């Protein structure tokens, strides 16, 4: 009798445990997530475009060798082990085994090699790495070796940064791809979700990758275990921000990105939605023409323009509530080790007297200064409106030209057409990725001092020493003024209270693994 009772009890308990596990499991997984996004992405080919929208979607499908943890440090993703040799000139990367692409094929060094080579030749940020690379080879079935011309510190950051970065495609996709973006039938990656369908104007559909090879470590930032808890994710283009907000409130969407700053305060207190801020700060940036025109070599004139602007009203008007902006002159944010105070006494001075004095010393005689801005991004236009007002009040003759983004980019390529243009810069994990560090980005900052410092920056390996060089570069930026930063600002999104697993803030791009319905 006792034996019976014991057996039944044990079996009963096991059954209950299984049922509970089953129910919990069933409650956790499943469902379709509907994300309202601001636009349709031009393509999901991560190599060639730097669109944040593309990265937000593509990061679920494709993976790279490294990724970032919550402290923005690069950690292995597809890599298993690494070995640095020859004083930093050689990096031997061991790849994880048993990782499958969405078409069932296993990932090996050939795939990595082909993807890296394509990215190096045609990728948006490829040349930054490859100009410092001697060669890259597949030195084993699961091993890739990078040989640098000289020790190049930013390499891991570049491999971890997916935006315009080296995601790994299967060999047959990568080796046949060139300048034109890969087509949807080639969207084959290793990520927790698979590309299912692109329905133009309606949605982009991803489905769970049942064969996903999880990393063992707990989720930390973008690193660690990536649990695909939804059956399906749909990214739906909803261009009107009012409609995005209404949609989440009415339950038509679960998540909506990029909400208007001025709505933040009322939405924060609204119980029907949850707000989340994107910590990857965006920065408004004005680029000065170093190749042609009245600003070409005249650093003093640039400093005069710089001195006349107070950035706080600019940010206040363009962004809105104080929680969403910071008038910080350091290019890299405080949360990173790159935060620098060099040259900040010149930031956001708003000193009209000083500006006029410097302008006089610079020999400014009321020449016309052409300032281009675009209406395609609301905060571009809004920021420049306030900036131009201040510049004009300081006595500068500003010709404020407004274009749509496409026209602005085309005019920007011609140095005779502009003196200043306004754009924004997204978050980058390594200062070397700043567009003004490149010599070919419009603005064309190529003074000798800068070139020397840039070379030093790339070649220094020690983190502390690199920071010292960066301080010098930032100081130079505030002296030669190739660019002017407005400040940091953060976009925010809203989502339905039904979602669980999203944090109060996302690192750079919101991600949807590790997220589920309650």
């Amino acid at each position: 009798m006792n034996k019976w009772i014991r057996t039944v009890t044990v079996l009963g308990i096991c059954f209950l445990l299984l049922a509970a596990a089953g129910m919990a499991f069933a409650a956790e997984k499943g469902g379709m997530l509907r994300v309202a996004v601001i636009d349709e992405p031009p393509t999901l080919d991560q190599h060639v475009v730097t669109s944040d929208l593309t990265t937000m979607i593509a990061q679920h499908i494709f993976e790279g060798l490294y990724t970032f943890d919550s402290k923005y440090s690069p950690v292995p993703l597809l890599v298993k082990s690494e070995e640095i040799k020859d004083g930093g000139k050689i990096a031997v990367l061991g790849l994880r085994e048993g990782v499958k692409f969405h078409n069932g094929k296993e990932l090996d060094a050939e795939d990595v090699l082909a993807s890296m080579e394509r990215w190096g030749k045609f990728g948006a940020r490829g040349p930054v790495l490859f100009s410092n690379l001697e060669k890259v080879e597949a030195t084993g079935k699961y091993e890739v070796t990078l040989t640098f011309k000289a020790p190049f510190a930013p390499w891991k950051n570049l491999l971890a940064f997916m935006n315009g970065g080296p995601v790994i495609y299967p060999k047959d996709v990568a080796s046949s791809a060139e300048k034109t973006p890969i087509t949807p039938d080639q969207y084959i990656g290793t990520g927790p979700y698979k590309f299912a369908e692109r329905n133009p104007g309606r949605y982009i559909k991803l489905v769970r990758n049942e064969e996903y090879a999880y990393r063992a470590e707990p989720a930390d930032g973008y690193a660690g275990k990536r649990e695909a808890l939804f059956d399906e994710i749909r990214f739906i283009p909803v261009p009107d921000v009012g409609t995005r907000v209404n949609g989440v409130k009415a339950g038509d969407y679960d998540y909506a990105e990029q909400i208007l700053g001025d709505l933040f305060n009322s939405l924060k207190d609204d119980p029907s939605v949850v707000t989340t801020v994107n910590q990857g700060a965006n920065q408004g940036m004005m680029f000065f023409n170093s190749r042609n025109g009245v600003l070409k070599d005249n650093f003093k004139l640039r400093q005069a323009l710089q001195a006349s602007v107070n950035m706080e009203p600019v940010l206040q008007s363009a962004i809105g509530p104080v929680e969403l902006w910071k008038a910080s002159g350091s290019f890299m944010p405080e949360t990173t080790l790159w935060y620098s105070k060099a040259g900040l006494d010149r930031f956001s001075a708003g000193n009209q007297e000083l500006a006029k004095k410097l302008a006089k010393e610079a020999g400014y005689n009321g020449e016309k200064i052409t300032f281009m801005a675009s209406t395609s991004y609301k905060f571009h236009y809004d920021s420049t409106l306030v900036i131009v007002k201040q510049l004009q009040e300081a006595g500068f003759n500003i010709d404020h030209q407004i274009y749509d983004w496409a026209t602005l980019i085309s005019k920007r390529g011609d140095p005779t057409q502009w003196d200043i243009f306004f754009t924004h810069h997204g978050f980058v994990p390594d200062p070397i990725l700043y567009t003004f560090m490149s010599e070919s980005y419009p603005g064309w900052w190529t003074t000798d001092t800068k070139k020397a410092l840039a070379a030093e920056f790339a070649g220094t390996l020690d983190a502390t020493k690199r920071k010292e060089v960066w301080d010098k570069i930032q100081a130079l930026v505030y002296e030669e003024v190739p660019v002017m930063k407005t400040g940091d600002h953060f976009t925010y999104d809203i989502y339905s209270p039904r979602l669980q697993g999203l944090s109060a803030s996302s690192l750079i791009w919101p991600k949807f693994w590790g997220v589920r319905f309650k």
Partner: protein
Amino acid sequence: MKFLSAFYKRKIAFAGLIFISLLVVFAVFAPFIATFDPQGMNPVDKLRSPDSTYFFGTDNFGRDIFSRVVYGARTSLTGSAGVILFSLSIGVLIGVSSGYFRKIEPYLMRLIDVLMAFPPLLLALVLVSILGRGMGNVIIAVGATYLTRTTRIVYGLTLKLREEPYIEAAISSGVKQKWIILKHILPNMMSPLIVQATFTFAFSLLDMAALDFLGLGIPPSIPSWGNMLSEGRMYLTRAPWLLIFPGACIVLTVLSFNLAGDVLRDRLDPHFRRDIEGV
């Protein structure tokens, strides 16, 4: 004068006429009526609801909406007037020529027919994309879309007028072509064209507002009702006064012109009435 008496019959149209006159006064005397600089930014005072200082409240830059609405009257009236001038002058030129001179008629009218096949808003936005944003360019772009319709109407009117007995009499008695056109055809078109102009005014205002909504109209540095709606539309729940006042102005202005056109059209010779497109 016989026009004005028509307004007494329909009281609403008369009210509309008064509104239009008020608008013209506002537009002409804007610098004296506005309380603030329409572009003056005051971020500290942003998004204030209407009060005694800011009659219509402020927008997200802290600009006074009342002053912007007053100056906006100037922009909207100038814009629509420009469209009328542009489309009417070219429309009359082409329309009369086609209607009168049989030789060039097929070519010109074929061109006009083809242009009419393009959706007007798209045509306008392509033209603005090419020409760039600016008051003059927007007038040309929107004017071009009204040009086709005006030409069609003028052409139709010319054809009808040609058949009038007194015209045929003039031709057969040897009066010069130019004289006939100037002294007989054009003056008789005046009435229908004036009516058409009132409707063009109304609709071009709405079209320009739509272009502003798409971010492809009058540059935002010039205060205009359409731009105010376009910039303010995201604040529908947060600060509705950004939309109410410029919106009401557009509605009332368009309504007034539609009513006026309506009343005037009823007074037209029925022969021509059908040619006028309107509400």
